[in-house]
């Protein structure tokens, strides 16, 4: 489908129409930071921001999610009949999601939905019912390194439509059927507008100064990387907190727990992280990743080696730079991967 054009002064009308079919969410300025929230009116949507403080993964993989409910008893037949939580009602649309965050979801799709057995319906349901309308980056941050991670300021992977902000108007590029449904009824864009979007993308790519090399990481074997001497220094200052993993758009580890209250119970999953000492602890007291070094190495190996090995070269990182900004001890993923690649 050809590119469409949407004048910014028609935005209210456009979003108003969408509101009838979708629950709209978009990055907005909250407490001085760009944060995801339900979009009440078009004016609240941000157009100039680097990226949101936290990744929008919470929309598909909430930090706490009830999976099923049950009657809290073991001696009656009802005790083990588990009722899955109801599916998402209606459709959702995330407006102005950054291409890197959308790319992250396409990586997670490969992990949450693999086959008949590995088929996370909680994730899939929300993904199926959500339309992702991206906003191409025109002004990437010094911490962005998406172009090194098979991604980029106007990457389309995972998106249903991509918007380019051309000042007083938006170029709307539908990428999937879901995206076409959103762009329906808009005027077609001219060649000049498409060219402007192209130019903006090139300029944005040129602004990305952080480079991370992956060629040696790809060439080396799992064991060669695992046994590299660099791990002896990377972990030194790590606090083993979960900041990097919870801010990360691709980190997806979780814990499952049962909670009961009188005669009722639920099985709930919560984000968990590989930095935690107890994450891999066996009931016997043996811990396969018992040291801080093991755990720090696991996080980087998982993203940059294990996922690529298992998922046809796809990297478990999109270069959003959130962990670089938020790590309390400045463990910079760019430095780590460049060390792995050295």
């Amino acid at each position: 489908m050809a590119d469409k054009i949407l004048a910014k002064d028609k935005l209210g009308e456009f979003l108003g129409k969408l509101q009838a079919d979708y629950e709209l969410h978009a990055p907005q300025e909250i407490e001085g930071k760009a944060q995801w929230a339900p979009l009440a009116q078009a004016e609240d949507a941000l157009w100039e921001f680097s990226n949101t403080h936290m990744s929008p993964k919470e929309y598909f993989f909430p930090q706490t999610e009830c999976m099923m409910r049950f009657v809290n008893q073991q001696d009656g037949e009802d005790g083990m009949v588990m009722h899955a939580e109801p599916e998402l009602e209606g459709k959702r649309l995330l407006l102005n999601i950054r291409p890197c965050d959308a790319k992250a979801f396409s990586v997670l799709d490969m992990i949450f939905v693999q086959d008949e057995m590995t088929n996370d319906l909680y994730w899939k349901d929300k993904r199926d019912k959500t339309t992702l309308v991206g906003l191409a980056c025109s002004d990437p941050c010094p911490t962005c390194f998406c172009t090194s991670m098979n991604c980029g300021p106007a990457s389309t992977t995972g998106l249903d439509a991509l918007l380019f902000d051309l000042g007083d108007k938006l170029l709307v590029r539908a990428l999937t059927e879901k995206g076409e449904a959103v762009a329906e009824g808009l005027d077609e864009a001219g060649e000049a507008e498409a060219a402007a979007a192209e130019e903006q993308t090139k300029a944005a790519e040129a602004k990305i100064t952080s480079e991370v090399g992956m060629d040696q990481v790809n060439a080396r074997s799992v064991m060669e990387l695992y046994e590299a001497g660099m791990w002896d220094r990377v972990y030194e200052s790590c606090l083993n907190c979960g900041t990097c993993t919870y801010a990360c758009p691709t980190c997806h580890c979780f814990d499952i727990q049962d909670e009961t209250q009188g005669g009722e119970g639920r099985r709930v999953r919560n984000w968990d992280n590989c930095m935690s000492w107890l994450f891999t602890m066996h009931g016997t007291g043996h811990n396969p990743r018992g040291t801080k070094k093991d755990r720090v190495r696991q996080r980087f190996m998982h993203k940059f080696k294990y996922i690529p090995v298992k998922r046809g070269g796809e990297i478990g990182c999109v270069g959003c730079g959130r962990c670089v900004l938020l790590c309390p001890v400045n463990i910079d993923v760019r430095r780590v991967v460049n060390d792995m690649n050295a």
Partner: protein
Amino acid sequence: MKNLLEYVGIEPGRLHFSWISSAEATKFQDTVIEVTEAVKALGPAQHMIKDIRKVA
């Protein structure tokens, strides 16, 4: 602990400390009555209540 809980808005009177010897059965009984009455007077707790029936 008592101060901290009151500081974050838990009503005074929900936490009670007493020093009771194992031989002081009557004091124990009196204290329990006193505490339960004090808590009943406060009504159901409004804070630090987790209800798993709520949607999460």
